[in-house]
């Protein structure tokens, strides 16, 4: 659950961190007005929820307000990482004496938050981590104790930050930690944190990713999330409570359980097929969910067959079968569907499916092989016909 840069900056500013001053424009006119209000050089920055906007041409310098309008127009026509750019942030260009990377995120290995800083800011921290690991300083935070001032000073001293900037740096890192905790974030990042001409520290870019599991207790953050960003099928999957990830293959997958869904994809590939997606319908499997899942899978017309793999546990196979039958009536399915049911009430489930057009399989291997056969029967080049 990512926030836009401008939202992240607002959050940081509320916690007392100095951020670069800017306004959001939705069109050329707006960008022009903001730029002329600032006077001088401005940065025009695409507001998108994906990374890599710099490389995609989503961040540009404009010399004057006319220039700003033109550049904003260009950027607003971009699509970056599957997201349409709907807004740009217009900010005065800042003279940069030094760029610092500063972030707090969770360390999975150590089960705790970690403060990460580097004197090599402004670029991709993962590149720094790989090429110059010594340039990254880390402090692990005890969850109950929280970040301590001395830990920030440790980091400041390790990244050779001039000591006159330490008090300000400590204040920023502590505020960033507060933002991380108060908002149930999984990442709060300032990259770059800039030392400007006046020797002050300014957050020039900001990133906040929130813990989706905690949104229920973060009503303000929930309002900040742009639920309508991204592809339509992602929005629909989210609405139905499905986990869906698109892939490039021809065999659609509909599975209960995330591990089993991955296992199903893997077995398809192992036997020479290509999965078209990851899809976990979760626990239970009512008609609406199954139908919605099928619709999402079928929207990709590279999909030539669907493999449904259900392991009944708490979920009962007969209920799933009923959901399937109802869904099949509702969704216009023109391709073959292989179904494998096992576990609780399997026999009843299979009986219900007897009269359907569904192709039944005995085991996961059997199901994968059947699905692959079906795709092969359609001809080898078929998968490429739609990409022309």
């Amino acid at each position: 659950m990512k926030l836009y840069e401008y939202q992240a900056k607002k959050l940081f500013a509320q916690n007392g961190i100095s951020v670069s001053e800017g306004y959001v424009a939705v069109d050329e006119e707006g960008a022009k007005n903001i730029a002329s209000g600032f006077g001088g050089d401005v940065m025009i920055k695409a507001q998108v929820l994906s990374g890599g906007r710099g490389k995609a041409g989503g961040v540009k310098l404009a010399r004057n307000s006319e220039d700003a309008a033109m550049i904003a127009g260009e950027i607003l026509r971009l699509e970056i990482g599957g997201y349409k750019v709907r807004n740009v942030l217009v900010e005065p260009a800042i003279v940069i004496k030094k760029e610092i990377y500063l972030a707090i995120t969770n360390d999975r290995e150590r089960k705790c938050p970690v403060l990460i800083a580097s004197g090599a800011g402004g670029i991709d921290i993962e590149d720094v981590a790989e090429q110059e690991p010594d340039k990254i300083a880390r402090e692990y935070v005890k969850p109950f104790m929280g970040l301590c001032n001395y830990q920030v000073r440790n980091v400041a001293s390790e990244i050779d930050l001039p000591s006159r900037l330490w008090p300000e740096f400590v204040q920023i890192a502590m505020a960033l930690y507060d933002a991380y905790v108060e908002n149930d974030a999984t990442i709060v990042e300032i990259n770059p944190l800039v030392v400007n001409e006046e020797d002050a520290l300014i957050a020039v870019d900001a990133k906040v990713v929130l813990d989706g599991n905690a949104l229920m207790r973060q009503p303000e953050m929930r309002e900040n999330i742009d639920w309508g960003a991204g592809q339509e099928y992602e929005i629909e999957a989210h609405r139905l409570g499905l986990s869906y990830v698109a892939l490039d293959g021809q065999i659609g997958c509909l599975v209960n359980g995330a591990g089993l869904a991955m296992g199903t994809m893997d077995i398809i590939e192992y036997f020479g097929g290509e999965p078209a997606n990851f899809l976990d319908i979760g626990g239970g499997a009512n008609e609406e969910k199954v139908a919605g899942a099928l619709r999402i899978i079928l929207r990709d017309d590279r999909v030539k067959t669907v493999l449904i793999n259900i392991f009944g546990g708490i979920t009962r196979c007969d209920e799933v079968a009923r959901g399937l039958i109802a869904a099949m009536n509702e969704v216009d399915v023109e391709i073959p569907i292989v179904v494998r049911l096992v576990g609780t009430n399997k026999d009843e489930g299979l009986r219900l499916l007897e009269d359907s057009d569904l192709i039944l399989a005995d085991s996961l291997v059997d199901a994968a092989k059947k699905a692959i056969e079906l795709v092969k029967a359609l001809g080898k080049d078929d998968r490429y016909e739609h990409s022309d």
Partner: protein
Amino acid sequence: MSILIDQSTRVLVQGITGKEGLFHTNRMMEYGTEIVAGVTPGKGGDWVFDKVPVFNTCKAAVLASGANCSVIYVPALYAADAMLEAVTAGIKLVVCITEGVPLQDMMRVREYVDNCGARLIGPNCPGLLTPGECNVGIIPGDIAREGNVGVVSRSGTLTYEVLHTLSESGRGTSTCVGIGGDPISGTSFVDILRLFEEDPGTDQIVMIGEIGGQDEERAAEQIADRLSKPIVAFVAGRTAPAGKTMGHAGAIVEGGSGLADNKIRALREVGVRIANHPEEIPELLK
């Protein structure tokens, strides 16, 4: 023989009067699990199925029932409090089934559980099953039979698939432990592998990993150093793309870390036999 739970396990159910709690309490009791008490704040004094007394607090429940294990079915935002409560009340084995517990809650819970010397299984896990003896959580008991294979898994239904495959092949399970799919959980592969190594009832081990984190790599290090029992592993997610969460919050390949292939390589290097798919597992067992 088994690990963690057996016939002597006295189970406390937190959130026992909720829909999930009631449903699974019934299932666990049908399996023969000794459910000695339940907790639902404000419902103290009630009885569930005319057999299980309900208490307002874990403190009271543990005092009255001598429970030594707790299983948690409370909603995600209250789960952390429930785990802390169980541990404070002296429970040394806490099993949290609840999915969707906030990550920062889990960091704090983990710190506390470790400080108290308790063991937490989960959250977001199917629980534990010692066939024929005790079922704590939501694993369908009828898919596994008694035997000498220890099973440990980060997954839910994929675990059932493996238990089913083992049963079909005529093999049985000593204990099955679902450690859960969250990035920060109570127990790792390493912890459970050690317990299996020490358990005389476990002769070989099946380990079901998935993408994300370094848990399988840490397990490989342990296997090289300390474990002697034969291990078969399946790691799900070889076909998963980077940067996408695959259902489980913890199942994500990030910045080149957490790849299934790396995990498989690490495990293979220390002598673990790798199954290409779940149905291959029985053939690879000794």
